[in-house]
């Protein structure tokens, strides 16, 4: 029988070290993460977007510095009767309105100089530029924290559904269905009204009016079904893949398959969702704050500043325009980065979402 079989060692051992299957001898081995990062670094658009995002984040981080060193005013205190010296002349921060019926006030306009009131003042005499930076801090923080919250819940639910199936899948899916049945903003508004009125304390987390946890919790919760569903689907398809079957066949215990096979394989697909979710959360946060159910005054976020600027749209449009542009720029960059990340992890996916 065996004499017909080739000498087992002859062929493979004869293969020279530069086996084409091993690629170039010089190139270091790289896993999916390193490969994706290398691809992303070659994507110029994504790198520019990432740079802009870093700049925005840095500027926002430097908000206290700007407020004390440049604007020189407290961005959270009203300054109705203050004066500011510009080009050697003292000007009131809020001047009586000269248009229409002469009612109300017109805040000082943008000076466009790197100093106090660079972007003018709002209707309470507060430095808009300083508030923009503080607002950006909150907007970014809320979007980031809410994204984290959404991912933790969504990945947990999606993985559990896909891994266990059966009753676990059924129950969790019905919970998601309930959440999903509400339009996002309706759900967010309902939640915020209840939470603002009642408050909720979970361990160290104190959710009440004026706390940043409020918008974080609301935004974090409403998007969970939208993320959990695709992750569940991908988990199901992973569970059918042969390497999971192989792991079972090799006697790997279920929890190890969960932690060592499922989780690392699902993570690249989760990462792809991060920039998109950040952008979505950014917009949701601004919308909720604009509706006064997100960040509560005197705290600022880009959404609340847009709301402040709403009444000044004719006299001082910059107050609403500046934070609006900031949101637009950040979201644009996040989307470009998101495209890049997706391409980096799955270069074969040619489908573009317009």
């Amino acid at each position, binding site marked *: 029988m065996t004499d017909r079989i080739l000498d087992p060692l002859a062929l493979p051992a004869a293969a020279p070290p530069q086996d084409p299957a091993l690629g170039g001898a010089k190139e270091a081995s790289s896993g999916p993460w390193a490969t994706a990062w290398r691809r992303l670094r070659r994507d110029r658009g994504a790198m520019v977007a990432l740079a802009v995002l870093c700049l925005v984040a840095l500027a926002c981080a430097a908000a206290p510095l700007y407020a004390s060193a440049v604007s020189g005013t407290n961005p959270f205190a009203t300054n109705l009767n203050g004066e500011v010296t510009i080009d050697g002349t003292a000007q009131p921060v809020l001047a009586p309105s000269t248009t229409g019926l002469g009612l109300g006030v017109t805040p000082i306009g943008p000076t466009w100089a790197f100093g106090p009131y660079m972007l003018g003042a709002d209707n309470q005499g507060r430095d808009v530029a300083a508030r923009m930076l503080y607002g950006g801090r909150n907007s970014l923080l809320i979007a980031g924290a809410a994204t984290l919250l959404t991912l933790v819940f969504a990945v947990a639910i999606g993985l559990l559904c896909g891994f266990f199936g059966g009753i676990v899948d059924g129950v969790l899916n019905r919970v998601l269905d309930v959440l999903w049945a509400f339009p996002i903003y309706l759900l967010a508004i309902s939640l915020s009204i209840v939470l603002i009125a009642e408050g909720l304390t979970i361990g160290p987390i104190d959710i009440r009016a004026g706390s940043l946890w409020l918008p974080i919790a609301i935004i974090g919760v409403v998007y969970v079904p939208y993320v959990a569903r695709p992750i569940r689907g991908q988990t199901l398809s992973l569970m059918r893949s042969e390497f999971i079957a192989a792991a079972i066949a090799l*006697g790997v215990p279920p929890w190890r398959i969960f932690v060592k096979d499922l989780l690392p394989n699902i993570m690249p697909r989760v990462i792809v969702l991060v920039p998109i979710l950040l952008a979505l959360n950014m917009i949701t946060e601004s919308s909720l704050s604009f509706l006064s159910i997100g960040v509560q005054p005197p705290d600022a976020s880009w959404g609340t500043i847009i709301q402040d600027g709403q009444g000044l749209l004719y006299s001082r449009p910059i107050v609403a325009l500046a934070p609006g542009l900031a949101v637009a720029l950040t979201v644009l960059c996040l989307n470009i980065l998101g495209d890049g990340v997706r391409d980096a992890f799955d270069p074969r996916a040619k489908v573009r979402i317009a």
Partner: protein
Amino acid sequence: MPAEPLLQIRDLSVAFRTERGLVRAVEGVSLDVEAGRVLGLVGESGSGKTQTLLSILGLILDPNAVLSGSVRLDGEELVGMPHRRLRRIRGARAAMIFQDPMTALTPVHTVGWQIVEQIRAHSSLSKRAARDKAVALLAECGIPDPARVVERYPHELSGGMRQRVVIAMAVSCEPRLIVADEPTTALDVTVQAQILALLDRLRRDHGTGIVFVTHDLGVVSEIADTVAVMYAGRIVESGPVQALFAAPRHPYTHGLFNSIPPLRGPRPARLTGIPGLPPSRGAPEAGCAFAPRCAYAFAPCAARPPLVPEGGSRVACFLPRETKQGFRRAGEIAA
């Protein structure tokens, strides 16, 4: 009383509950595999060979599957064994090799990591020792420069290399039994030969029993000691490879050999096949499942033929012995 073989399957049946009733994938299959021997399980798609293989390790995870019969590994009953105990047997005493090496390795870890994990799941070796063992295993499986290959991710390796890695993983705990589901089908012919040589060497060196599923009769003739031919969930003929290849006794086996185009001589205008299609697997057929396609079908075929010993093999066919001895292989195949 002779010692019990390494693997003893008795009257194994697998059925699936579906909307259209019970679909029987495997019916009354009995097989023996001795240590150091290779059993080739042959049949066309849907004949139940893969389900038979999966049920050995209790890997039919479909909740609608109904399993009955007995699978004994070293005298230990595996059917109905609790998952926890079954898990300690999988990979350690019986390992499986899958068909497609492209998908049988997880893409996010290096192959070395995967082999080390496998070793450490079943032994108390240190990471360092497990790693050294992984390198040694890869070398044993004919991988050049194994110390570098352990650092590689599966996508950086060719199909043949990956199948070697999969085999290295399967043999890492020196299992008594390897079940292989068409391990060479996804590979080209030269790599196929190397993999077959590797499996043959492993069973010679370690006395491993191998169950080898394939639809390729050429591969069976290369590696197997005994062959079992499956049709419609049942074994229709089984026996030593030489006897079965020299003189197939079941019309279906005969048909399979006739379907192989001759290597020498003029090429036939049309390839010979077996007319008709395998039966759909709903209600159990009363008679011989092959009868509707069989050129020799006669009245007794309305009842189910038992698998009876005949000339060293076992055959499930009512045809008179003389008719069956008349079957000869139409063309010589590779062997």
